[in-house]
């Protein structure tokens, strides 16, 4: 009943959105974009002349990379990311907003039942998005490997199941960590938050790494093997039955444990009284600074407001998450280097540049800075501060945050490039990329942020963000690679892309100011 209500709400919200002309246009654009990507991939993989295709694949380092080496680290990075996110971050389905609490008060329901209903809605949405992504990106790959329908079904289902599994992993780490922390004393809690990070050096011991690979990476190993083996036409399909069964057992097991933990969570941890307070940085209360001590600039005050409020919400854990991913990539590299005879990561600078672009999709604090305000946006609007300064302060906040977070891994990635010129240009590109993507995120945030807490950030906004990044930021990462053999031109191109990033960012920030001031609902 409750699940039906949640699904009805989601469906109504979709119908309401699609009725507004700008959203309808954007949905159509998304469909066209997916079709175009599918067409390009399909043409490249299945229609283009064999020699051109093989040459292109060779030029991006595909001679060295087996599909397994692409699948396994990708799935593992996702697995570790959601685990760390669950540990340090917040789980949207576990927190109840106004309408959820009203349902709880009036209906004979238990809190964990509301959580499960909300989780089911999240899972259905995930399945839908994953399926759209599969249709867009994977169908050309499936026909490239000449997969039979039965293998194709297994291939697609394993990915769909894994996307749902990731939600349970996030919920599991969130619930388990909160339950453990609620049962220990306050002093021990802080130690518990730091301990997982201090254990990373242990990973450098090969024996421990082997054990970790077997147990912790079991889900990603099982799914990777299922996917990889299903690509082989002449390997019998029954050989994937064991990894598939193992993953199904894991999936069922973790979903049951999450159900059990959610009951305990609402009994022992969540009292519905401290919903708005930070749950892990209580020591910051009443000790916050609002200026640099020299003079009270409104810009700095808004900047500090962003810093303190977001530190309590989601960004700080994401910094930790990012470093964890970086370490993980390093370890996978270390592991790969040990097992294969190569000592370097066999990737070309084109792949590295695209990795940077993809990582900047995932981590974007700029998208959240307006999202954190919602109903309270009017305070910023009526405050004696110009909206331009508010936008600028929010931009500087997210820029500094992403520079601190993403620059080390980006430079780390750049240094995996084979030639010094490529390293230099990828380092310059990464700074330009961050300048540009943050301004773009601020613009999208100001334009699409919903007015109330009940509404979620629209999918159209996420697609608009991804589409704009792909169009605006691609020259930043790709253009310099064309001039690798010409050192003088490379310096000029570096200056040009930095200039391009600054000018375009300024335009996006101007648009953000315009959008934010023109919106009546905020």
């Amino acid at each position, binding site marked *: 009943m409750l699940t039906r209500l949640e699904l009805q709400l989601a469906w109504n919200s979709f119908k309401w959105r699609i009725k507004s002309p700008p959203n309808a246009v954007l949905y159509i654009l998304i469909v066209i974009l997916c079709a175009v990507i599918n067409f390009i991939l399909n043409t490249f993989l299945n229609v283009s002349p064999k020699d051109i295709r093989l040459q292109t694949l060779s030029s991006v380092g595909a001679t060295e990379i087996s599909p397994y080496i692409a699948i396994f680290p990708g799935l593992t990075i996702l697995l570790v990311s959601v685990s760390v996110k669950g540990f340090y971050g917040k789980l949207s389905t576990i927190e109840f907003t106004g309408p959820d609490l009203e349902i709880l008060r009036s209906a004979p329901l238990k809190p964990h039942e509301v959580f499960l209903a909300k989780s089911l809605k999240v899972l259905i949405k995930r399945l839908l998005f994953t399926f759209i992504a599969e249709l867009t990106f994977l169908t050309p790959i499936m026909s490239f490997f000449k997969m039979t329908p039965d293998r194709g079904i297994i291939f697609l289902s394993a990915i769909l199941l894994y996307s749902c599994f990731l939600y349970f992993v996030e919920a599991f780490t969130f619930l388990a960590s909160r339950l453990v922390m609620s049962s220990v004393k306050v002093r021990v809690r802080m130690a518990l938050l730091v301990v997982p990070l201090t254990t990373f050096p242990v990973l450098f011991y090969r024996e421990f790494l082997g054990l970790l690979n077997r147990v912790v990476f079991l889900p990603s190993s099982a799914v990777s093997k299922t996917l*990889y083996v299903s690509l082989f036409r002449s390997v019998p399909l029954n050989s994937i039955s064991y990894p598939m069964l193992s993953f199904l057992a894991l999936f069922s097991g973790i979903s049951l444990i999450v159900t059990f933990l959610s009951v305990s969570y609402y009994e022992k941890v969540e009292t519905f009284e401290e919903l708005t307070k930070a749950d892990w940085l209580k020591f910051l209360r009443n000790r916050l600074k609002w200026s640099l001590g020299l003079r009270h600039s409104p810009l700095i005050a808004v900047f500090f407001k962003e810093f303190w409020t977001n530190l309590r919400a989601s960004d700080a854990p994401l910094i930790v998450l990012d470093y964890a991913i970086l370490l993980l990539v390093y370890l996978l590299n270390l592991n790969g280097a040990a097992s294969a005879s190569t000592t370097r990561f066999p990737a070309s600078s084109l792949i590295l540049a695209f990795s940077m672009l993809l990582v900047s999709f995932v981590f974007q604090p700029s998208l959240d800075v307006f999202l954190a305000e919602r109903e309270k946006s009017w305070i910023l609007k009526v405050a004696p501060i110009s909206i331009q300064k508010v936008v600028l302060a929010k931009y500087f906040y997210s820029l500094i945050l992403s520079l601190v977070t993403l620059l080390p891994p980006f430079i780390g990635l750049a240094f995996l490039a084979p030639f010094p010129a490529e390293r230099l240009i990828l380092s310059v590109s990464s700074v330009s990329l961050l300048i540009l993507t943050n301004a773009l995120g601020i613009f999208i945030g100001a334009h699409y942020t919903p007015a109330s807490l009940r509404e979620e950030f629209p999918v159209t906004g996420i697609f608009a963000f991804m589409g704009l990044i792909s169009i605006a930021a691609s020259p930043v990462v790709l253009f310099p690679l064309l001039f690798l053999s010409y050192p003088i031109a490379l310096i000029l191109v570096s200056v040009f892309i930095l200039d391009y990033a600054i000018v375009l960012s300024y335009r996006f920030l101007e648009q953000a100011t315009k959008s934010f001031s023109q919106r009546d609902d905020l």
Partner: protein
Amino acid sequence: MRMEILATVGILLLSLSIVLFYPSPSETFTLKVAITLQLDAHDRLSIGNITYEVLNEDLSEKEVVHILQYGQTHLNESGHRVWLALDLQGLSLPYHIQWTSPNMTIKSGSTVVHFFQNVEPGKYLLRIGVYASSDETEKPQLIEETRTLLI
């Protein structure tokens, strides 16, 4: 009580998944190609049956050499002296590997087995070149055959 049972079943399923994962296939595949060489009534050499099989194992160099030597136990002193050149080229992925056999003396029906290690899925073109001579002074005769493999 119901929840405790749920948790117990969950933990049991997690343990079961570790057990079930143990017999999973490894991520290393080897392509086994077996080529049968035949001599006709006029003592002319030809390529007979070509079979291939994808094995889910990583054979060490030692094992590969061992199997080749096993193939050589079929040698006949009065047969042809041959050597094989195999060329496996990826049509899907830029995978390209070549192999040339040592000199062998064969009799009709001898099978030469070669293992291409760490193969990836996709379509491949296998070119087989057999250089044969019945006499040391004679110029080697070349017999060629190509096959498309979907592995």
